[in-house]
């Protein structure tokens, strides 16, 4: 292993951060290079300092731990530290090496570190077997409640009710609201799966529309349709999209 492992601690509670530092003080091969008390600071910090390992709380002001991870350019190795047990499945979906439930012991903490070391040595990481299993078994879907995006230096939180439609754009998607457009690095498939189908429908290979925005469905040619939104904007409608919409409004 080269030099020292660098680490960042992200937790909105100072005592929680101090405890992790205390536990880390017995590991001389790790150096804590930054401490953050909220997700905004953490994004900036991690993108600049590029720590190898982060200790991440989930419930934090403004944006939570998961939303923060989405906005990182190169996510480091993650160990979650939280009092909430209901996010464990989701944690493994984002390839966390471990999930520490507060309060945790030095022994349990060291165990998580051992896993992290193994992970760091075997770079590049192969897809975690557990996470594949979790994805397979994840029957119960948690739909998104909001979407966070980074535009330039700013971080925006988009509430779902503001979204009009989502459009595929190479490796990205463009999220359209009345005021603005936002670029986000995610797939159409991801949004199709994580948005509540009661509110959003995949109407086309490249489009997902908010149901409440749809004003009209009109034919373009024979057997071909498009949807019309409030301000006359039209979006293409594929054949499967057409039957989905028809079922929906039945």
């Amino acid at each position, binding site marked *: 292993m080269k030099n020292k492992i660098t680490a960042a601690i992200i937790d*909105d*509670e*100072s*005592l*929680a951060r*101090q*405890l992790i530092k*205390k536990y880390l003080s017995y590991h001389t091969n790790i150096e804590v290079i930054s401490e953050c008390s*909220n997700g905004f600071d953490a994004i900036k910090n991690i993108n600049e300092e590029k720590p190898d390992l982060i200790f991440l709380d989930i*419930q934090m*002001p*403004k944006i939570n731990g998961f939303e923060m991870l989405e906005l990182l350019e190169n996510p480091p190795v993650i160990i979650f530290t939280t*009092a*909430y047990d209901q996010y464990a499945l989701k944690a493994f979906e984002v390839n966390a090496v471990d999930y520490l*439930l*507060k*309060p*945790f012991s030095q022994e349990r903490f060291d165990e998580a570190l051992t896993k992290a070391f193994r992970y760091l040595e075997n770079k590049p990481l192969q897809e975690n077997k557990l996470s594949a299993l979790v994805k397979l078994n994840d029957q119960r879907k948690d739909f998104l*409640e*909001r979407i966070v995006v980074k535009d330039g230096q700013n971080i925006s*939180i988009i*509430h779902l009710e503001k979204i009009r439609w989502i459009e595929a754009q190479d490796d990205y998607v463009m999220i359209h609201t009345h005021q603005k457009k936002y670029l986000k690095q995610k797939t159409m498939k991801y949004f199709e799966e994580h948005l509540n189908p009661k509110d959003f429908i995949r109407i086309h290979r490249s489009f997902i529309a908010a149901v409440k925005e749809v004003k009209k469905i009109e034919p373009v040619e024979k057997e071909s349709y498009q949807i019309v939104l409030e301000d006359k904007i039209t979006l293409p409608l594929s054949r499967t999209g057409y039957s989905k919409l028809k079922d929906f409004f039945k």
Partner: protein
Amino acid sequence: MLSNPILKDIRNFFSYIFVWLIITAAYILILIYGEKISLEIAFADGLIFNILLAGFGLSYWYSAKYISFESSSMLKILISHMIGGVISVSLWLALGFFITNFLTSSTEEYSTFFINNFGWRFLVGLLFYFLIIAFYYLIIYYTNFQDKSLRENELKNLVTQAELKNLKFQINPHFIFNSLNSMSALTTIDPAKARSMILKLAEFLRYTLVNNDRQKNKLSEELNNIKLYLEIEKIRFEDKFDFNEEVAPESRDMLVPNMILQPLFENAIKHAVYESLEKVTLKFKSLVQNDFLNISLENNFDSTSENKSGSGIGLKNISERLKLIYGLNNLINVEKTEGIFKVNLYIPLSK
């Protein structure tokens, strides 16, 4: 099941006897003055037939009880009672005639009298049969009805109790686990502070868990417990929030529902303090207005980080609880203006 209501209670029994005494007296008078029959026969006939009928009347209870309205059709009931009535009336007449005939000296006179009035007597017997049966049915219906409404009331009470129990505040486990984590940190950093935090948490838990059976507490007691909660959160979040209170002295001893303030404060801490990067001020106020104790909690919040849609479960529970306890709507009022969140509770004063 039901036993004969006339025999169940000594007062009912005497009333029954009394009614029969009147009927018997009237009957004898009719025989003497209407039918112009000899005194001896009038008394013998009147007493024997009426005593017999009174006795039969008691046994009619069983036909009313076993031929119930719920289990058979109207026609079946009518036919059963017709048959029952004819049989019992015949039995009554036969028994009455033989006994009276046996006791009186002028058998011939009595026989002609009896035969002349046979049809009339038969009808009166049937009439009594149906009157008594109807009376029994009325009693059965009435007791069933009372039972039912009693049971319904009990059920309603049980449901209310269960709902109240459901709505009652439950300690947020994450608060406990996060606090334990902070204490774990403090044990090495500042052992004295760790001990003080443990004591506060213990006191908070004791009040919350032990008092859980009590429906109402004094406002001052509830407020003291809230302060423990806030002090614990303050150790965790240092200067992320301030707390002000303005408590009207006369409101301190007033009774409020147990743990009604906790979800109010928890809501503010969760949605304002946890979500904000700025300092949050919590302002608590209580004052007596007309027939209500007005409690309010106001806090500033970061309107840009408005948290999801999942807020307000705690407030909804408060509203439901107040409605169940006081039977009034609109005892909670939520105002949300630019960056300020305020909840008002109106607790009716018990007189």
